[in-house]
């Protein structure tokens, strides 16, 4: 008998969305990644665009406010909206 512990991933929809056409992360911009208090955003190494990596959003909005190209949209997390 072998009972092997394993994880089950929980699904949730990312409240912070990035408009890939407007995002200039491929030019070296990391503003949204820098300002997120919870450190939830990252640059996708393949697409070179910003994306929300962790589901711990406080919907505080520095990422959207400080983005130089208006590429970031903060939506209310589903559990609250």
């Amino acid at each position, binding site marked *: 008998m072998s009972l092997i512990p394993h*994880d089950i991933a929980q699904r949730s929809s990312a409240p912070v969305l990035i408009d890939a056409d407007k995002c200039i992360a491929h030019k070296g911009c990391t503003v949204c990644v820098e300002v997120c*208090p919870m450190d939830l955003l990252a640059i996708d190494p393949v697409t070179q665009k910003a994306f929300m990596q962790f589901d711990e*959003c406080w919907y505080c909005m520095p990422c959207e406010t400080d983005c130089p190209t208006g590429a970031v949209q903060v939506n209310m997390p589903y559990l609250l909206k």
Partner: protein
Amino acid sequence: MNTHELEYDIVVVGGGTAGPMAAIKAKEHNPALRILLIDKANVKRSGAISMGMDGLNNAVIPGHATPEQYTKEITIANDGIVNQATVYAYAKHSFTTIEQLDRWGVKFEKDETGDYAVKKVHHMGSYVLPMPEGHDIKKVLYRQLKRARISISNRIVTTRLLTDSSGAVNGVMGFDCRTADFYVIRAKAVILCCGAAGRLGLPSSGYLMGTYENPTNAGDGYAMAYHAGAELANLECFQINPLIKDYNGPACAYVTGPLGGFTANNKGERFIECDYWSGQMMWEFYQELQSGNGPVFLKLDHLAEETIQTIETILHTNERPSRGRFHAGRKTDYRQDMVEMHISEIGFCSGHSASGVWVNERAETSVAGLYAAGDMAAVPHNYMLGAFTYGWFAGSNAAEYIASRDFTALDQEQISRERERVYAPLQRDQGLSPAQVEYKLRRMVNDYLQPPKVTRKMEIGLQRFEEIAEDLKFLHARNPHELMRAAEVSVIRDCAEMAARASLFRTESRWGLYHYRADYPTRNDAEWFCHAHLKKDADGRMTSLKRPVEPYLIAIDQGERQAYQQLRIDQPLKATA
């Protein structure tokens, strides 16, 4: 994982409100000092005022209020359990702090004569100064930090303080939440400005990070001070705030009050005389919420279009700007709809109530070389301006303290023990997810500690928190980010135990809802007109003790003493429009 060993004269932990002020004022005191400001996030947008602030709640401005009157009001609002020296020191410095922020470029509302446009929101005096353009405050602070050449390290999670052979603090330890690199920073003094313990209770939405406070403020400062041997004061005086249901941000009756808005019951009637947050106000709020007149609402629908537009501009661009988006999603329009309110989860926060790390009027904690300021430092009802002011005190006094001090030897055993503790979740191949353990822990905080507090329930809560201490040994972090959450779970657990033990110790009810004990429902001044402190004793156990309330500097008249006990309106008043 690399280890970085650094050395600074003063390390300031937390770059939100108090921290930047502390760093700048220490440097002003002695420009030769090497000062490091560390933040778990990025100082540009960290802390409770990440997106700005819409007003000062406690401005003591000549011509509008006096330090003596303010000290009296806070003494009464906090049911007499106040070290007046700390509140008075704040009050006397309040206007100097405002003038400093004004010179730096923070914009306050002024009238046509150029005087500060102070509003009355408190029960007795006038201390509220709106900042309709307060969204730039972090930018203003950041500019000053750069100008003062303060060294900044972002994304470092500070986990423990280091102490020398005499017990004085001589450094901090932590790790980078992106690389997991370990940091050992030697210092002559440390200033903790880590904010509230805002991730203690679970919001009623059930969403882990939908907290009232910025969820980065998990209570790190409370746990670090505790483990370094510092005394914490009146932790049972929880923070519980009125807020917008589900959104969980402040409804800001403060901001709308002077413009005609108010807190109402389901009939649209006013039921409290004063919207200033106090335990007594929260008690009336809670009673109304639970009654047939509930729930409670923020009422603005009787106001003129122009006034509503002003309110929207202030509330939807400052502090919690996603509020407008939340209302839009629910199709709530202030013009036709009252906004449903609720109460927040419990937390520790001296900015809003009185629960914090004990400090005196010099921002010194009970441990040599350790200072604290802001929401985590026990100066009742201190709010943002109190954070700036005590940051100022901490910076100048720490600079003075270290003038005659050398670095002391670091205890290598403390360092290796901490490194092992912090990294354990990263070294396991499998185990419990930090988010799940946090969820269960905080759900139990709600189940067992949320007022009305009941002795037997709190005792069961303590057993559960002990079990979760065991669960921490099975936490598994898959990356440095999860390692940060794992470290925070241990902080939250420490705070939960502190909240339970502090609440069990004070066998009376005080501060309205904040410390309402169903089995000790009345206030008992004969035995409990005192501070209740909590600390780690010589054997490493959590212990509570009574401390006398310091003699008042400003006497309270018998008639005034009851002012905050009579907040309920006998005959509900209808809106006049």
